[in-house]
C-alpha cells in the first residue's frame, strides 16, 4: 500500500514539475510585449517618461534578468506562495484575482462532473436492458458526446437565451446587482448558472451513458453472471453485481476525462462570459498577462492532480483487485 502511494506521489510530483515548467514557458514564448502594452495603456507622451516607466516595469517584473534566472526566481516565489502581480489588473496580486474567479469555476465544474457521472451511469445501466430505450435514446447520447462543448453552449444560448428568452446569456448575475446574500441575488446567480452548467452536463452525460450501457451489456455476459443465473439468482441480484463491476472502468474514465471536462468548462465560460478561470485565461492572453496566465494554469494543474489522486484512492477502495496488484505497475 505504502509503495503504491509512494509511487503515485512520485508520478504526481513529476507531472506537477513538468506542467508548471510548461506553464512558465508558454506566456514567455507568446508574441508581444506586456510592458509595451502597459505603457500604451498609460498614455504618456514624453519619451523620457516612457523610458523611465519601461525601465521601472521591466525591473519590477524581472524581465531584464536572463531567462534561467527568471525561471529560478519563478520557482522561488512560487514556493513562497507568491504568484506575482497581475499586469491586466495592475497592481492586484494574481492570487487575489484567481481566488475571486475560483468559486464560479468550481460551482460549474463540480456539479456538472458529479451529476453527469452519476446520472449518466444510472441512465446507461437502465437503457442497457430496455431495447426500445437502447435503440431510440442512445443515438442521442452518441450525438451529445460528440458535440463540442462550446458549440452546444452557443446552441443553448441561442435557443433558450435569445429565442425563448428564458435564461440570460452572459455574466454570473444580473449586471444591475452587487454580490450579496439576498434571495434576489441568489436567484439571479442560479439563473445565470443554468445554461453553462447544462451545456457541460449534457455533453458529459452522453459519454457516461454510452460507456455504462456498453459495460453493463459486457458484464451481463460475464461468467459470474451466467453462473448466478444457472443457480437461479434473480435478475435483481445479478444487476446489482453487474452495475457494481461495470462502474469500475467508469471511475477510471472519470480520472481520464477530468482534464477534458476542465478544458470544456473553460471554453464554456468564455461563451457565456462567466467570470471563472476560463474567462481569466482569455483576458490574460489578450492582455499579455504572464503572471495571471501562469497562476491560472497552475491552479488548474493542481486541481486536476488532486482530483486524480482522490480517484486513485477511491479506486483502491472499490476494487479489491487493485489492492492485491499493488506491487505491479502503478
Amino acid at each position: 500500500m505504502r509503495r503504491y502511494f509512494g509511487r503515485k506521489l512520485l508520478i504526481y510530483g513529476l507531472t506537477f514539475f513538468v506542467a508548471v515548467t510548461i506553464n512558465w514557458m508558454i506566456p514567455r514564448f507568446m508574441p508581444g510585449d506586456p510592458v509595451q502594452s502597459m505603457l500604451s495603456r498609460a498614455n504618456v507622451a514624453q519619451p523620457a517618461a516612457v523610458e523611465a516607466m519601461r525601465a521601472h516595469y521591466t525591473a519590477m517584473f524581472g524581465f531584464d534578468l536572463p531567462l534561467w534566472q527568471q525561471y529560478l526566481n519563478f520557482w522561488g516565489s512560487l514556493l513562497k506562495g507568491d504568484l506575482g502581480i497581475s499586469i491586466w489588473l495592475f497592481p492586484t496580486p494574481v492570487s487575489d484575482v484567481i481566488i475571486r474567479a475560483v468559486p464560479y469555476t468550481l460551482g460549474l465544474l463540480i456539479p456538472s462532473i458529479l451529476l453527469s457521472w452519476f446520472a449518466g451511469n444510472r441512465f446507461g445501466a437502465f437503457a442497457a436492458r430496455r431495447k426500445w430505450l437502447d435503440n431510440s435514446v442512445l443515438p442521442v447520447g452518441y450525438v451529445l458526446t460528440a458535440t463540442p462543448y462550446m458549440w452546444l453552449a452557443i446552441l443553448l444560448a441561442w435557443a433558450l437565451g435569445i429565442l425563448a428568452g428564458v435564461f440570460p446569456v452572459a455574466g454570473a448575475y444580473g449586471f444591475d446587482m452587487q454580490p450579496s446574500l439576498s434571495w434576489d441575488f441568489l436567484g439571479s446567480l442560479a439563473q445565470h448558472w443554468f445554461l453553462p452548467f447544462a451545456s457541460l452536463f449534457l455533453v458529459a452525460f452522453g459519454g457516461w451513458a454510452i460507456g455504462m450501457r456498453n459495460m453493463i451489456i459486457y458484464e451481463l455476459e460475464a461468467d459470474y453472471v451466467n453462473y448466478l443465473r444457472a443457480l437461479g439468482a434473480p435478475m435483481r441480484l445479478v444487476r446489482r453485481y453487474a452495475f457494481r463491476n461495470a462502474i469500475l472502468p467508469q471511475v477510471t474514465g472519470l480520472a481520464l476525462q477530468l482534464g477534458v471536462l476542465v478544458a470544456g468548462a473553460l471554453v464554456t465560460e468564455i461563451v457565456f462570459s462567466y467570470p471563472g478561470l476560463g474567462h481569466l485565461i482569455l483576458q490574460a492572453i489578450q492582455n499579455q498577462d504572464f503572471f495571471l496566465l501562469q497562476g491560472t494554469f497552475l491552479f488548474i494543474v493542481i486541481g486536476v492532480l488532486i482530483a486524480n489522486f482522490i480517484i486513485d484512492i477511491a479506486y483502491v477502495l472499490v476494487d479489491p483487485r487493485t489492492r492485491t496488484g499493488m506491487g505491479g505497475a502503478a
Partner: protein
Amino acid sequence: MALNVTDLRVYYRTLRGEVKALDGVTFSVADGEIMGLAGESGSGKSTLAKSLIRLDGRMRHVGGTVELDGRTMPLSDDIGMDRFRFREVSLIPQYSMSALNPTRKIGKMVGELLDSRGERPDRAELERRLELVGLSKDVLDRYPIELSGGMKQRVVMVVSTLLNPSLLIADEVTSALDVSSQKAVATTLLGFRDRGLVTSMMVVTHDISLVYQIADTIMVMYAGRLAEKAPADVLVTAPRHPYTKQLISALPEVGVRYEDRRLTGIPGNPPSLLKPPGGCRFRERCPLAFDQCAEQPPFAEVAPGHFVACWKAE
C-alpha cells in the same frame, strides 16, 4: 428414476439456419448414478448439459421432455426453471475459475445468493462443506482473486451443491486442470455422491479415461445424437458402437510401447449440424457402414443397461 429425458431436441439459431446440436436424445439417469457424458467437440454434450439447467440466448428448445423426480422441467421457461435451479438441478460450470463475482468476498456472495433464493444461510454447514473439500473457512473472507484456480474450483463445487440438488451437472470441470488436480476433483465429486449431498450426477467430459474412474455408466454422443450408453467398465472393455470402439482404441494403454505401434485416430470429421445427413451420422467415417445405415438406427437396449444406436451392434 431421477432423470428421464425423452426425445430432447435443442437447436441453435444462427444466421445461416438452425444448428441441430441436440437432435432427439432419449435416456435416463437413475438415483445415485454417476453418468459420464463423453464425446468430441461439437457432439452436443455441452448443449445437453446446458439444456438441463439454463438455455442460453441462442438455444431453442424444439421438442422433447425432461422429467426430474417425476416433475417435468419447463426448459424454455426461464423463470419457471428457477424453481428447479440450485435446489433440484445444479451446475459446476466449465468456467469455474471465473464463476465468482470478482468484487465480492466469497462468504458475502454466497450469503447474498442464498438470501435471494429465499434460503437461510447456514454458516456452520458452509464451513463444514468447505472442510470437506479441503478448504479452511478463511476463504469466505477472501476475494476470488486471492484464491488459486484449484481453490476457486473447489469453492464453486461447494456452492453448487449447497442445497443438496437431485442432479448435479459437472461440465468439463477437469479440462483446465493438471492431472493431480483432475484426480482430486474426480474424487471430490465421488465423495459428494457417497455422502448423499447430491443424488445423481452427470459428468460431461471429453476425457473418457478420467470419467471411467468415477462414473457408474458412460454415455457417448456423436454429432448431436446418442451413440452408446453402458456401465463404465463394459463401455471401456467391450464397446459395441463402431464410434466408441474407435474412440477407445485411440486412447493410450498402459504397457504398450507406442514406438512400435502408432496410436490411431478416427479418420474424417464429424458432419456439419447445420444440414446433417439423414440416417446414421457416423456413416461417412464408419468402417462397417452398409445400405441400412441410410436409415437412423434406434437407441436400443442390446443388453441390460447397455444401449447402442447401431444396426450392427448385435
